[in-house]
């Protein structure tokens, strides 16, 4: 879990209010956040730099955010909280597009003709409304796991 707090001091009441109002968070995440809110955590100043914030999207895919729960919590200022939720959707869109493009490049490197057969069909299905965001996240997660455990490039 990463907590961003410009004042340098974690606000337990702010976290509680946010969690109470945020139905998207899982019960486990809420418990973790509450535990941390009691811990009174101080954030290093390097995390406050704009460059860090602007590149967060490259370091955290939407599924990683859901797993680790990224909070942007400025003290007495709720605006960046809204920024986080807006960003989550944008990040998902970006990851979704990147996944399709990376998959195409990857398959083309190995077998261009076969890639040209499967990718148009896949992209059509991938971008269709039937392919729910939850499915897309599961596919991206599975692809990463699958990639991590595979050794050979081709049979």
């Amino acid at each position: 879990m990463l907590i961003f707090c410009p004042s340098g001091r974690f606000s337990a009441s702010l976290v509680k209010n946010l969690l109470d109002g945020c139905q998207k968070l899982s019960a486990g995440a809420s418990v973790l956040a509450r535990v941390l809110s009691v811990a009174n955590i101080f954030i290093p100043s390097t995390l406050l730099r704009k460059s860090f914030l602007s590149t967060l999207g490259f370091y955290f895919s939407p599924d990683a955010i859901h797993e680790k729960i990224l909070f942007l919590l400025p003290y007495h200022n709720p605006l960046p909280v809204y920024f986080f939720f807006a960003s989550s959707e944008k990040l998902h869109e970006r990851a979704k597009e990147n996944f399709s493009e990376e998959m195409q490049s990857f398959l083309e490197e190995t077998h261009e003709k076969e890639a040209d057969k499967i990718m148009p069909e896949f992209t059509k299905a991938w971008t269709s409304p039937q392919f729910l965001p939850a499915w897309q996240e599961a596919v991206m997660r599975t692809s990463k796991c699958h990639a991590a455990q595979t050794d050979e490039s081709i049979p």
Partner: protein
Amino acid sequence: MLRKRMKAFPDFKNYLSTLVNFVNSGGTAARFETWQQSLDKLLLLSTKNFANYMIASNSLFANNSLYESASTRWFIDNNSYTFEYDTLPKSCFFFNQIFFCSSRGDTSEIHTTKGAFYPTLKLFFGQGGTVNWQRAGFDPSTVSAELSHYKID
């Protein structure tokens, strides 16, 4: 993804193809969820299990086939099945299904049967059902066979 070592063909190609067929077959959120749960568990096992499961899932989503080869195809007449995980992943088929085997231009049928298919083992355990020889000219009311339990590998 490109930073990691992946097997593009056939594994990823099969995975993408399976997803395409899942969407085209009108797969539901509930079915995706149970299928995905099996995938998550299979990813903890060897890649061979994952590969076999993907091939079987692809056939199932594409044309309700449990097994396909150049000469033989086992399939059911509808897509009413569920995914479960029982030590190994399986697809459960409910009662009143017609199970077909098409081989070299001839087709056999098992009526009103049900069972479970284990894609990683390529085994189908069937329960109940009737086989007749109507297409050979025998009246089903006089010549037929009742099945209790059977296994197809």
